[in-house]
């Protein structure tokens, strides 16, 4: 459980970046945070994981107020995959990179081996365990960053543009991990510019514009009202745009669109 209550933040006192931010996220939610470049999305993630402190208001992560909890303790409750994964890596091989967080939880010996192995397999990295993370391509670096977070099994995951630059196989793997984490009762918050990805996998959309939340709705409701997407400066997912052009009910995925089309064609 994550709750954000009346949070305001600015990097200096004169320029507010975020104001009046409030929302809660329940276990199993997959929440997409959307908005223009510079709207404050990544800043919001840094407030949630305790790297920044709000100027006012309160954030509680899994029972811990970020104001009173050191970042390394908070990391057990909330794991972050940053936009540039290379900025969060500091070990000379993939195995050590992934083991680092799990070691901080006190895992050693067989338990550690098992946890790392399981995570390597899940993220498709089992054949590169001895490779330096920075010798991997960008997509696999992203999975190393994700794996190092997953190995800690935090109840809340923050993913900043996780789908960026991934090919088909990698996107499918990422989506299956997101779905699996949500099904296991963990919460996933992702910042994302790819609205097709959001439409397929998010259960809820929070739109940020000029530092404020301008919409917080279930995904279908958000995209069903084009005025909301317009206010947030995001585009409609392709299948939503196509359904609108053809006067069909909004469809978040290609199969949903096909079902709506076949039904309308039959009537």
């Amino acid at each position, binding site marked *: 459980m994550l709750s954000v209550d009346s949070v305001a933040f600015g*990097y200096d006192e004169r320029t507010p970046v975020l104001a009046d931010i409030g929302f809660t996220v329940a276990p199993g939610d997959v929440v997409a945070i959307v*908005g*223009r*470049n*510079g709207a404050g999305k*990544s800043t919001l993630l840094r407030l949630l994981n305790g790297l920044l402190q709000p100027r006012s208001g309160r954030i509680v992560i899994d029972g811990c107020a970020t104001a009173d909890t050191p970042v390394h303790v908070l990391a057990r409750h909330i794991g972050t995959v940053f*936009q*540039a994964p*290379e*900025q969060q890596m500091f070990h000379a091989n993939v195995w050590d990179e992934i083991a680092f967080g799990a070691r901080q939880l006190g895992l050693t010996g067989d338990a550690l081996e098992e946890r790392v192995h399981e995570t390597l397999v899940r993220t498709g990295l089992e054949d590169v365990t001895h490779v330096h993370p920075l010798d*991997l*391509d*960008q*997509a*696999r670096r992203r999975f190393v960053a994700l794996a190092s977070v997953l190995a800690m099994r935090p109840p809340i995951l923050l993913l900043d*543009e996780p789908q*960026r*630059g*991934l*090919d*088909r*196989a*990698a*996107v499918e793997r990422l989506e299956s991990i997101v779905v699996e984490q949500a099904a296991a009762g963990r919460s996933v918050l992702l910042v994302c*510019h790819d*609205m*097709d990805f959001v439409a397929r996998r998010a259960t809820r959309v929070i739109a940020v514009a000029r530092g404020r939340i301008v919409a917080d709705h279930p995904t279908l409701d958000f995209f069903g009202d084009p005025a909301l997407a317009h206010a947030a*400066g*995001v*585009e409609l*997912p*392709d*299948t939503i*745009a*196509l359904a609108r*052009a*053809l006067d069909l009910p909004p*469809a978040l*995925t*290609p*199969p949903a*669109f*096909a079902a709506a*089309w*076949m039904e309308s*064609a039959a009537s």
Partner: protein
Amino acid sequence: MALIDCDDLVFRYPYAERPVLDGVSLAIGAGERIAVLGANGSGKTTLARFIAGLLPDVAMKAERGSVSMEGRPWPAWTIAERSAAVQFVGQVPAQQLSGCAFTVYDELAFGPCNLALPEADVRARVEEALTICNLRHLVERDPFTLSGGEQQRLSIGAALAMKPRVLVLDEPTSNLDPESRDAFIEQLAALPASLTVIVFEVALRPSMALASRFLLFDGGRIVADGGASDVLTDPRCIAALGETSVARAAGSVRAAGGWPAGTPLPLTVPEASDAFAEVRRALRR
């Protein structure tokens, strides 16, 4: 003679079993707008660096073949000549910043100043880059405090300020929100038609907006070369990069028996909207 010639290029990273570039031959004409598509880890970035002349270098040399611009292989160019001829913008914008500019303006002026241009020319180039990359409102900001998308626009602006004849962009729009992306693509289209633009992409949408020629890079070689309707529907391209959502939607309709035989699947929303409207009219007749 093509502007850029890549001739049977073979390159292997030290200790790698297989070459990542395994005989790439490619001719690029002046003013072409090209998208090179390929899966993660296929070697796109390596190819991009060879085409932009950043490779070969002291430590990494091709086993065979070379890349030439105007008939002259890259190693024969001086850095000053090359930087005015071709600019490369990589995937991680923060790594592209000079690190010695305290404002967006100074970052954009850094390259032109290094060409020892008169001040008026430097200012004119900075002004143009500010417009094209939508950076005017950020002109006084410290580059390292910008968001990921803003840094990406800045690194592209800094490349354009060098007035290159060839722009090589490695996933140029991945960090941009849709408005910035559309504005950027529009501005890129408005640049002189003589500017050659080569983008390396895994994303289909920006590729379709930017390019008229598509190359599929797979197994270290160019395996398909043609227009969007040829390359994006190639099964190898679909296997590596997937399909657009509307192509998948039309594919689902076809699987359910609702798509006329012989009608190609649409790739974009406007194409799909026309195609579905046509199917609907045919059903009503």
